């Protein structure tokens, strides 16, 4: 403690003691009530109410819930606020009865219990997952009313499990295997194809998230975890992996999760999540911005590796300043950035633009639409702008 800070501390203590003295006088003899006892599983403070936002639909079993990015502190997402996307609801799976079958182009088809899988060498990986439908409304112009509704289909966790490569090695893949088909045990038996090269590189069979067992809505008891790729290929409730020479061309990689281009043709297997960033504060919310110091804060991420630079503009992209990146800056993770700013009451147009370690620079909306048109639905990663009006209200622009 420096002399100055000690003096400030003592001054504060004296003031606090004075206030307490007055209060103590008013309630003499009552003392202080004990707090709550220890508990088996902790809960957040009852005053904290941040929650996922549910896409309005007739079918809550086949929709998405969005992470409240503006309420998120730091770069990790609590498991209970991690975004969800299910196609047929969350199954209730008893772990002792769950099996993973690996078959197809392997010399030794094998079935694994969870206990058997847990005996493989342990692996851990921090990474974000992002639904490729994140920000889909922005293709047609400013759509989401706040950052939760524009960008909340991304979340970042630490995942624990075993390397899929180690488990596949037990099954002895045949040389002609090029893909695997992963199937979940949800009601819709969601199925997706993944290139085997990626599976052997850095894919996990994950049973843990943020230090505890997966939540049911995150795939309990076992899911694929495919770093950097669109979320739906990290198949939850994983029960089957079939090695094959070709993709299976399931509905979720033909009718959906393909990107329609202006000429009427479509990109297929657009798995990589390109670099993206968004300012989370100031961002649209119920309380107008107060004049004076306002730290600009946000998140940046890239499926291809580390974020190396985030620039911030307060004039809609005419001028850019480098923001500070807050470590640890990890590959394929949310990276927090900040820039000090002063809101003077003059209207402003806030924007962030990130660059990743491959040199890829987040595009403007105009550049993205010039390349892909406005009908591809998936993989919208353009620069997001927030308009700050003179009254301090903030809007999607």
């Amino acid at each position, binding site marked *: 403690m420096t002399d100055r800070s000690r003096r400030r501390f003592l001054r504060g203590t004296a003031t606090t003691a004075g206030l307490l003295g007055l209060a103590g006088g008013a309630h003499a003899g009552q003392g202080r009530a004990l707090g709550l006892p220890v508990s088996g599983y902790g809960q957040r403070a009852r005053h904290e109410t941040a929650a996922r936002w549910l896409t309005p639909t007739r079918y809550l079993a086949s929709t998405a819930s969005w992470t409240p990015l503006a309420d998120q502190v730091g770069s990790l997402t609590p498991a209970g606020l991690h975004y969800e996307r299910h196609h047929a609801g969350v199954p209730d799976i008893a772990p002792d009865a769950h099996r993973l079958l690996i078959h197809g182009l392997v010399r030794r088809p094998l079935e694994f219990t969870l206990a058997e899988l847990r005996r493989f060498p342990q692996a851990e990986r921090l990474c974000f997952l992002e639904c490729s439908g994140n920000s889909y409304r922005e293709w047609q112009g400013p759509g989401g009313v706040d950052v939760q509704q524009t960008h909340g289909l991304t979340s970042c966790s630490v995942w624990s499990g075993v390397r899929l490569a180690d488990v596949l090695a037990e099954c002895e893949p045949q040389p002609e295997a090029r893909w695997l088909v992963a*199937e979940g045990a949800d009601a819709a038996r969601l199925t997706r194809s993944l290139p085997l090269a990626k599976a052997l590189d850095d894919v996990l069979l994950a049973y843990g998230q943020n230090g505890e067992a997966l939540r049911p809505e995150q795939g309990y008891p076992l899911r694929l975890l495919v770093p950097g790729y669109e979320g739906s290929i990290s198949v939850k409730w994983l029960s089957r992996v079939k090695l094959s020479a070709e993709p299976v061309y399931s509905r979720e990689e033909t009718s959906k999760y393909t990107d329609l281009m202006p000429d009427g043709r479509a990109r297929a297997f657009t798995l990589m999540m390109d670099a993206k960033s968004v300012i989370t504060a100031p961002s649209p919310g119920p309380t107008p911005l107060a004049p004076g110091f306002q730290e600009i804060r946000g998140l940046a991420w890239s499926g291809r590796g580390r974020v190396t630079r985030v620039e911030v503009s307060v004039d809609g992209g005419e001028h850019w300043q480098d923001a500070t990146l807050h470590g640890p800056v990890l590959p394929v993770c949310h990276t927090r950035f900040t820039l000090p700013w002063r809101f003077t009451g003059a209207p402003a147009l806030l924007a962030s633009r990130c660059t990743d370690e491959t040199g890829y620079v987040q595009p403007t909306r105009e550049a993205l639409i010039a390349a892909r048109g406005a009908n591809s639905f998936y993989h919208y990663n353009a620069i997001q702008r927030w308009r700050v009006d003179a009254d301090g209200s903030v809007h999607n622009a």
Partner: protein
Amino acid sequence: MPERALLLTVLLWASATGAEGLGLGHAPDAATLAAADTAIGPSGEELPPGRGSVDEGAALFAAQCAACHGATGREGPDPVLVGGQGTLATAKPEQTIGSYWPYATTVFDYIRRAMPFTRPGSLSDDQVYALTAFLLARNGILPQDTVLDRDGLRAVRMPNQDGFFPDPRPGAP
């Protein structure tokens, strides 16, 4: 000593992860393997026996599908299944089975694994063939008098089969 410790570690690691594997997992029985292998690729080789007609499919569709997809498969509110051919390059593309899906086998696969939405897995293979026949006929891909079976489905070529291309990224926006 450090060298010997390192050597021991390497030897232990090699024996634990050597070519003979870890010895984990167990061989599935034939019934498990056969029951699990349901995903159907474009060749259709995994398709089960069975058959169903367009007319049977029409009745099933009215009873089990129309509430979400509309009486003719075009009204919604859930995904439009019929029509849309020629719209993919317009400002309002309709990505239906007929206009967009590259493989007919995917129609069978998806209905069998995921439909009807509130009761997936409840349809017989004959019923799935019938619904597939109905939807392909509604899209003008099969004649109205079709009775669809494994060989018939494997022979279907979808209008938009060549409408997809590999991801050009990185190197394209």
